[in-house]
């Protein structure tokens, strides 16, 4: 008799999202106390802030430096926080699969789990990779087409806030392909056809035919798909998305632009706002103490100056600059002045 396979789940984030990571792991633990949880930390502690991995509600903390990424300093400088936290996902997945995990889930840190994910674990017995599309139903109104359908064409058919992979068949091959692309091309560059890891995933149904699309409305519910899966409360007082039990909700950008989108597509269901209210309260409970506002270790030069997007773009697009400046963090902002775009020049 074989024992049930151990399920692994990982997320990646900077300290600014530590509150969200804690909510994700707490809600996931409630449903799956036996899963092994991994936190890939894309940050370093600022002065006066103490991070104790043992006190976090997870089994392993892997730091960016521990992932064995070649030429890490120059590589990391090329990415903003969203890009860098995403760029490590393939590498982390391979790392966990190499440790012998049979099934691995990735969940974005701003997700909260409300019901069991066991049906997906079971689907991984048949399928090698599972992905959730942004949308399951065509929009009917212009505003929804513009926001959601065209949004998905720009940013990817699948939302990569979730991915699940089996360590057999096409699973490892998918992981390696994903890892390699993300190490090279994980940027927010919609005009050039790339949006971090999401546009890459458009290839998955073709490259890895034994993948599965999750059509159940209860998974990865978010402002972009609420329009056609309105929330409601059932007789057992559980929350449903469309006709399905709510499994996990993706609280994208809820502290700013996300609320407007939630309002737009809430269908006036009070459950949407109750979830938002609950999540915001959880954020206050789980906020890390003494973390400076807007802190991100890879977002500043060594002298503390904030790294601008144009400086990152200049560095990644000028190979000469990459050869010239081996440690861009140490070089400081002055080293990039010659590359400042004309539009950003001081009058």
């Amino acid at each position, binding site marked *: 008799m074989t024992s049930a396979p151990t399920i692994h789940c990982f997320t990646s984030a900077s300290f600014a999202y530590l509150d969200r990571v804690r909510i994700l792991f707490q809600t996931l633990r*409630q449903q799956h106390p036996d899963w092994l949880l991994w936190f890939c930390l894309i940050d370093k502690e600022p002065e006066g802030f103490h991070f104790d991995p043992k006190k976090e509600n997870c089994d392993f903390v892997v730091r960016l430096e521990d992932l064995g990424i070649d030429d890490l300093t120059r590589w990391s400088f090329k990415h903003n926080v969203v890009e860098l936290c995403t760029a490590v996902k393939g590498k982390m997945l391979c790392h966990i699969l190499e440790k012998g995990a049979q099934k691995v889930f990735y969940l974005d840190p701003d997700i909260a789990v*409300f*019901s069991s994910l066991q049906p997906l674990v079971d689907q991984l017995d048949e399928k090698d990779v599972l992905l959730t599309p942004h949308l399951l139903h065509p929009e009917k*109104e*212009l*505003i929804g087409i513009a926001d959601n359908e065209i949004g998905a064409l720009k940013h990817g058919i699948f939302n990569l806030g979730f991915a699940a992979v089996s360590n057999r068949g096409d699973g490892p091959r998918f992981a390696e392909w994903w890892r390699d692309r993300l190490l090279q091309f994980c940027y927010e560059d919609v005009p050039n056809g790339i949006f971090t890891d999401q546009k890459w995933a458009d290839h998955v149904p073709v490259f890895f035919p034994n993948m599965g699309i999750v059509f159940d409305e209860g998974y990865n519910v978010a402002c972009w798909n609420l329009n056609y899966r309105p929330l409601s*409360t059932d007789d*057992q*007082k*559980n*929350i449903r998305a469309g006709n399905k039990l*709510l499994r996990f909700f993706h609280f994208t950008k809820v502290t700013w632009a996300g609320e*407007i989108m939630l*309002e*737009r597509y*809430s269908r*006036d269901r*009070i*459950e949407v*706002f*109750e*979830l938002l*209210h*609950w999540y915001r*309260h959880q954020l206050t409970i789980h906020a890390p103490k003494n973390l400076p506002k807007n802190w991100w270790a890879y977002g500043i030069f060594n002298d503390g100056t904030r790294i601008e997007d144009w400086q990152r773009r200049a560095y990644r697009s000028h190979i000469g600059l990459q050869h010239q400046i081996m440690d861009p963090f140490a070089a400081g902002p002055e080293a990039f002045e010659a590359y400042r775009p004309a539009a950003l020049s001081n009058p």
Partner: protein
Amino acid sequence: MLHEMLASYTQNNDEERLLLTKLNHYFDPVYYRGSYDYHHIPDMMETRNLFHNFMTSGWKDGRSPSRLFDTIFYLSTNPDVVELGINPLLHYVLYGKKEGRRAIRPQAILRQEFDESAKINQQSIQWTGEIDPASAITLEKLSTLIKAAIVQNRLLLSISHDDYKMTFGGVQNLIEDEQLAFARHGWTYLHISPTVYPVALADDVTADMFVVSLRLNGKLIGRVPFSYLLELASLLVKDGCQITVIVHHLMRSSPELITQLIQRTNERPIIWIHDLFSICPSYSLLRNHVTPCGAPNMDSISCMICDFGKERKNHIRRIQEFFRINKPDVIAPSQTALDKWLQQGHYAYDKAAVVPVARLLMDNNPMPIPTQTVKKPLRVAHIGARVFHKGWSTFEKLALEYADSGKYEFYQLGYALIGSLPGCVKHIAVETTHDNRDAMISTMLKHRIDVVINWSMCAETFSFTAHEALAGGAFLIARKDAGNVWPAIQQNCPEQGMAVETEEELIALFADSKFTQKLATAPRRLGFLFPAENTAHWIMKTRN
């Protein structure tokens, strides 16, 4: 200036008139006037001037023209409108509405309700144990006072969440009646209420730190630490006094300390189920203060996302322990309340009884229906507290929907007005006091209220307002799943009321002329509402 503003968006006078009509649909002069502090209302008493004021300067101060348009929300969610510098209502009427933009914050009232209530819940309350010297009394003095008051060796220790003489409500009324009833039998009545006000059980607090306010036979005598009561109870029992503890409410109290008090007495305690606080700290069984939930399984998503969910497990554990140790007699004000409590509480108890806190006697003769009633607008009222969970926002929505129908006039009968109501709802102040308990009924009669909407969101255990509405001769429309409201109609006069499942259904019903006719011609009777029994009657009947 207004004319110039509108003229720039229109081609001719007809278009301008049409635009003015559309804008006026979103303008409620009564509501708008209420947005100004009474002493600072500009010189604009005329409706025309009020409208002019809003269109030119009021919106810039963030004032909204009515409940139908939220200026601040519209500007905050439409930065392009801010950039244009255009009056936001004008933008909405000209462009925004067609583009699918929203005029008001979705579910604004409910969201405000749970955001504000959550703030109150999250306030941490410190038990200081400090007593204001002006209200402090010593154990010796307390002992002397109580001993002097005891004439028949019988003492009642009654515990509730507030000082019943300082606030007015169903529970407070009952306590007052009960105290007077015991006094008629010569029994001494000491009422105990906590002096710190969390909307929950008291945290783990010691008897020395837990300060309570005392009323002896109705008279305020001061504040003492709970430890004094423990000592006093032991002393009195030793002297042969018979002491009974009556718990009207556990909110703000420590069940563990009350257990200690009960254990020093020599009678089985009595616990009232005035609401469902013993099932959930959200005593009206509202998830996040807004959504009726019926106290579901504690592992449900409902409990997970509810402000009370986390506290509920500990709350239930403490109350379960309280009932297990004390095995009290339990009294509920209605069969509905008792059934719900028995079904969900699963607590230990000795006897369980229903003691209605008021009785309604309906007149045998139907009210004469004036022939013109059918032709006149029906008077539809919300009575009682203008708060969300007592159905105010649903009533307001109904009134706004049918304000211009000509079929209905809308009334609110309740405490004095603070702020503004929509102009379509006429407010009538009613001050119900202990000595004038029929104030609501007499006001209803005076203003010839035809229909009352009781859209309580709570699991009502009795509902005085439902009984008052029937006694006042109104046809009562109830939310079906609001605890005892619909059962009270069925029990007292089923022909004088009806139950509706959802808010959408309620609002749709009022559009139907046949329904209006049914309301106008429904047989209605007047009634008398009088205090019924209380703990004194029950004890005399069952224990002596």
